[in-house]
């Protein structure tokens, strides 16, 4: 599947907006700048900017616009990743990647098509520009790259609803940019994962920022956990598979759609309301209230077919790779009801 080479000349302006591009790294290298010897005045502004980004990611998921200075921006991006690596909290990394990708989404929308295509290709998406666009679409995305990066597995994004041919999916500019946003989230996380900090002499200014951010994050985390605690199960005990999904969610892992479905259907079936279930999903960094509400209401049978979905049986959980124990039950709900009954009997025994 040969993809035409895209001819795009990147300017300093592009590096400033897209500091994840290889050109940005090249530039930092060209300037001879390594973390160990950023000069004091530049270091201060770089650290200040990284602080702004990380704090914004924690508070609101909205990053301020990029710096006017392209070297400062490229370095601030790297320093942010470095600090994320030092703290190494999956959920925080996810929050940053979500916030950062969202900003890139907005910037990319105002670029011309060939620049968009270039940035997407740098994110690993095989992409073609369509000159005379049939049906008004200007982009074609490799089908496998497409399905790996769909933001929502329904509606217009469902592959069956797309114009698909010979391994390519047609997409509008907004859609292409949105796919790029998803790819970027993953790329940022992989980037942090892949950083090696041992053996690197890290300037004190960066270390102390890491401490500040880490403290701020643990406060935020406590708030999230408290919201969680008030959602503790009534009655029965959750089976290990459901607890594992909840733990992953809390740890900010990107949990697959099947796990989200299993969790939502389970919680609804043990009597939680749609709002209570949404509260549980809220700690996911890519939480989108509108989409999540739609999905949960759908599972609850308030939309679409009107039928309430029951959670997967253990057999299905196993094939989905979601079963984590052998509980001797056929259904995760059975585990819950059993323990609830045991709890109730225990209570009676104590009264006698």
């Amino acid at each position, binding site marked *: *599947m040969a993809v035409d080479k895209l001819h795009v000349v990147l300017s300093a302006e592009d590096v400033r907006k897209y500091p994840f591009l290889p050109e940005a790294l090249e530039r930092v290298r060209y300037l001879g700048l390594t973390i160990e010897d950023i000069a004091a005045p530049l270091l201060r502004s770089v650290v200040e900017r990284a602080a702004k980004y990380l704090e914004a990611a924690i508070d609101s998921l909205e990053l301020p616009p990029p710096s006017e200075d392209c070297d400062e921006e490229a370095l601030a991006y790297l320093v942010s990743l470095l600090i994320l690596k030092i703290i190494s909290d999956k959920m925080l990394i996810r929050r940053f990647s979500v916030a950062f990708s969202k900003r890139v989404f907005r910037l990319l929308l105002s670029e011309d098509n060939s620049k968009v295509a270039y940035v997407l290709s740098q994110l690993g998406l095989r992409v073609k520009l369509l000159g005379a666009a*049939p*049906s008004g679409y200007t982009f074609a995305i*490799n*089908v*496998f790259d497409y*399905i*790996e990066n*769909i933001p929502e*597995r*329904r*509606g*217009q994004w*469902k*592959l*069956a*609803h*797309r*114009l*698909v*041919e*010979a*391994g*390519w999916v*047609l997409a509008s500019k907004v859609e292409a940019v949105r796919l790029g946003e998803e790819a970027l989230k993953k790329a940022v996380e992989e980037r942090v994962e892949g950083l090696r900090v041992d053996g690197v002499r890290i300037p004190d200014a960066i270390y102390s920022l890491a401490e500040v951010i880490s403290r701020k994050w643990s406060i935020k985390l406590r708030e999230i956990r408290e919201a969680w605690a008030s959602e503790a199960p009534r009655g029965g005990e959750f089976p290990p598979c459901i607890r594992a999904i909840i733990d992953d969610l809390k740890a900010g892992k990107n949990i*697959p*759609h*099947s796990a989200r479905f299993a969790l939502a259907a389970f919680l609804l079936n043990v009597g939680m309301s749609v709002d209570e279930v949404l509260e549980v999903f809220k700690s996911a960094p890519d939480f989108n209230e509108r989409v999540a509400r739609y999905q949960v209401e759908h599972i609850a049978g308030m939309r679409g077919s009107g039928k309430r979905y029951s959670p997967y049986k253990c057999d*299905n959980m196993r*094939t*989905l*790779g979601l079963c984590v124990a052998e509980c001797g039950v056929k259904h995760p709900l059975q585990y819950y009801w059993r323990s609830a009954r045991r709890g109730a009997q225990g209570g009676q025994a104590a009264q006698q």
Partner: protein
Amino acid sequence: MGRPPSSEVALRLFRSYYRSLKADEVNVTELSRREFAFSYFGEEGMHRHIAFGSTVQLLAHLAERAPRHAFYSTAYYRDPAAKNMDEKGWEGSDLVFDIDIDHVETPCKELHDRWVCKSCGASGWGAPLACPRCGSESIERHAWVCETCLSVASDEVLRLIELLESDFGLSGDEMLVTFSGHRGFHVHVEAPAVRELNQDARREIVDYIRGVGLEPDYMLVKARGGYRLRAETYGWYGRCARWAIVKAGVENPTLSKREWEDLLRECVKREAVAVDERVTIDTRRLIRLPGSLHGKSGLRVARLSVQDLEGGSVLDKVKVFIRGEAVVEFEGEPPRRILDLEVGYSTRVLPLYAALYLLLNGAKLSKFELK
């Protein structure tokens, strides 16, 4: 307690087969990164977490142990012999499709499948979903395959290949098509482009192939007097457009929402391929080893070409013990047709491959002797 004599015979036959098996009949790409698993005659359970450095080593093991069932992983692992998943180190997985005769409608099930209702004890021919007498779904089934079901399922495989080529841009030489050894077919896509796909992405592919979740609202545009298709040449739109021509007699007709819904339903029914979702989304699955024999049929998990599937020569590729005969006596009523043979209560002498199939798939025999 000794080994039952039937497995004695089967073991001997399997061993003779494996001793002459050639390396090019075992089609395993990157063999040293795969996990293997076997079960053996006269033993319970499955031996897992086995790895081989080369095809030669694998062949030696097959010749020595003549396993009853042989599997390998669709996944590639850093250390395929490690006992747990974390240590194994998953490094991608082929994209695999399973087409099972059970999920394809065939007329011949009446001729060879038996059922017994566990609730009321009724029994009969065919493959009903629920007991026709009491409605219970707990039914015990005894299923067999014949030429007819294999050819219906072959058509399904051909449509899958067509769809993978036309819509997903895959080429025939990126696919390995095999007989599953008993009740269906496997299509292994080994292209690097698919190896890293996660479960969600694989599910999207399955939904596409099965036409799951197709909603007219996303496919239609308003036109004067009704609706038309948004496009006519791509993917499901193209399939739908072809059906519309058949149904309405004109290209891209303007129809009501209701008419489009009916048309779409019919189009999906005819054009979707009944692949087993669980197999495709499982990225750590064990699957039949190409070139091995299936322990419930004695048939070969043979590699098949499009020509084999089109020309109906599947059975020729998968029958192994075509020379020799066996004398059998039935205890109960035998399936009326198996593979390419008609069978009856009074049948006494059968070709070896057919007799072995009856023996391995649990027909009640009071006599089985090699002639």
